[in-house]
């Protein structure tokens, strides 16, 4: 029982991470109908931006309290990644809007490679893993094999809060209305006086901010970051967004948790070698797509002819 609970806790943390990444995929798909595959690497850049801020703070203001340090790290990561994300949106993704979807997919994959290789080559000793500071209190409640850490709870609730905020932004504000309008019909939205470019860039800013948050959260949770962490995270985030149904925030959350569940299940329950767990998880994704070809929470599939 304890063991089961522990798996659940780990799975939930993992699921939250995947959900945060998947939300980004789904947002971008919503407004522009594109898959921005470099999103996983954006997360990675976020965590490295946070780390650089930490180093800088350490050098300039040694002895700053951990709370403020964390806040500054989040701020730096979000600022850096939002700037990068909006620039990429303006000068790379928007020009590609009319191109076949494959071009965008490949272009963003290459952008991801460029980011990854750039960090590896130009960040000081970037090809090796970097320690991420432990800044959250390490209180833990232990009962036999079950360990519940305060920092996990904190990160989980912060992640949930971020997703709720994004949801409220999309569902309840004027800006959100404009985003949804663009997502539904770009031309009609333009005719209604929506500034298309501005809305797209804002959406990318929001999505990138979530990615930066996920990056720092990843760092604070694992206390270790490396240049290639975005590669698999991107693939999984994309899978999660698609299983859930693209363009739907609920779907992204659902997909994130399902993927985490599949991986945990694969590692724990499979009677033969646990090494097959990724085979199991991706195999399940393929099966799921065969059964529900447009994701669990399907987008309305009426087609304009």
């Amino acid at each position, binding site marked *: 029982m304890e063991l089961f609970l522990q798996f659940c806790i780990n799975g939930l943390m993992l699921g939250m991470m995947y959900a945060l990444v998947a939300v980004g995929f789904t947002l971008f798909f919503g407004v522009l109908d594109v898959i921005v595959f470099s999103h996983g690497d954006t997360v990675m850049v976020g965590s490295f931006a946070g780390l650089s801020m930490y180093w800088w703070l350490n050098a300039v203001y040694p002895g700053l309290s951990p709370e403020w340090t964390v806040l500054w790290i989040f701020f730096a990561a979000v600022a850096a990644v939002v700037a990068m994300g909006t620039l990429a949106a303006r000068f790379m993704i928007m020009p590609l809007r009319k191109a076949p979807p494959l071009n965008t997919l*490949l272009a963003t994959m290459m952008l991801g490679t460029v980011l990854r290789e750039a960090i590896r*080559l130009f960040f000081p000793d970037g090809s090796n893993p970097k320690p991420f500071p432990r800044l959250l209190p390490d209180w833990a409640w232990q009962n036999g094999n079950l360990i519940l850490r305060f920092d996990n709870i904190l990160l989980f609730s912060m992640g949930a809060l971020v997703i709720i905020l994004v949801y409220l932004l999309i569902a309840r504000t004027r800006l959100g209305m404009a985003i949804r309008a663009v997502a539904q019909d770009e031309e009609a939205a333009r005719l209604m006086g929506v500034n298309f470019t501005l809305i797209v860039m804002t959406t990318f800013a929001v999505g990138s901010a979530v990615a930066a948050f996920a990056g720092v959260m990843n760092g604070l949770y694992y206390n270790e970051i490396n240049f290639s962490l975005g590669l698999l995270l991107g693939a999984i985030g994309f899978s999660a967004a698609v299983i859930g149904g693209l363009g739907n925030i609920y779907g992204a959350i659902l997909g994130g948790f399902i993927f985490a569940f599949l991986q945990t299940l694969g590692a724990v329950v499979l009677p033969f070698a646990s090494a097959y767990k990724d085979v199991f998880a991706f195999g399940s*994704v393929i099966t799921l*797509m065969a059964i529900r070809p447009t994701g669990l929470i399907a987008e309305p599939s009426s087609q304009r002819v």
Partner: protein
Amino acid sequence: MYYHQPSRDLVIPGPAGCALMALALLAWCILFLKAEDQTSILVYMTSGSLLILIAALSDLHKSISSTIIANEKAWDYCMVLTMLFLILIFNDDHYTLFLLGTIMVYATAVLGLNVQLGYTGVINFSAASFFGIGSYAAAMLTSAGLPSLLALLLGGVFAALSGCLLLLPVLRTSGHYAALVTMAFALLFKVFLEVSEWFGGPQGIPVAPLTLFGLDFGADFTLGGMEASFYVKYDLACLALLCLSFAFVRRLERSWFGLSMDAVRCDETASACFGIDIARWKIAAFTIGNLLSGLAGALYAMMLSYISPANFAFADSLLFLSILLLGGMGNIWGVILATGFVVVIPEKFQVIQEYRYLIYAALVLFMILYRPMGLLPRKTRSYGGLP
């Protein structure tokens, strides 16, 4: 004979023009492949790209393409002869021959991808996995004692059959959803190879060299008194495979098969209304494509003589895709040209070592941004232009 042709275009009469151009190409290829030091490589590259630029900016490219279109057969033969000459000239240069072989094998695999993606619009992010299935089938079957020609053919068949596993999800999904299915397969495939003991695990397995009618492809031989590399034999085999696949794909494109495939790609709903069975064409394209990838993979494995899972990762599927995009979706000459670039240029720039991958990714990115249709975009079908 009628086709659209502006009058000021200069058309070199017939086959002679083709031969001239082939000769120029041959000369450039020899010089470029022989070039060792960085300055001469740069000089050849800039001179080559300048020529292309001049041709693209002036009307030259029109005369070139109309010469080629008007004398298609002659051009085909010229290209085969060019390749044969290249192989002959580099007969003892193992490394260059290996590169040439790699180009031809990759081009065959990308031709398969072209049938899927370029003609029918079936998204496939796991081309390298099917290539890998061919390789592993060849390795396992030859070690089980099957004759290598049979193993080669079965490599293609196995790849096509394995593709059937994905048929249902590929048929039911479209767009990004289909991309995910094949991507998941590519990720799964490599991990599967790594963890399964039966396929040699992560360290890979050796592959027996190709033997045809008692001729051992793995041994050096003498050619007119000169010691020639064993790769000459492999290159000839690769050339044969490439020619067959090329002819096959072109026939396919020009037949009503190709027409139906194009229709499916352009508008599924409309073609369904016209009575085209979408599922049938998608299945056909997917299977044919995987068959070609598998055949290429099997031959590649024999040429390499050792394979391991790391060769067939998701990144390699992306490489195949970027070749197709670079060449121009649906243009089979473009595919061959782009394969040449993608295989040779990184090799010629080993000097930049650890920066290689970064620069490669950035180049592809710019390519997609500024020339989204590829180097040689596919032309709209023209009727009556063919003799």
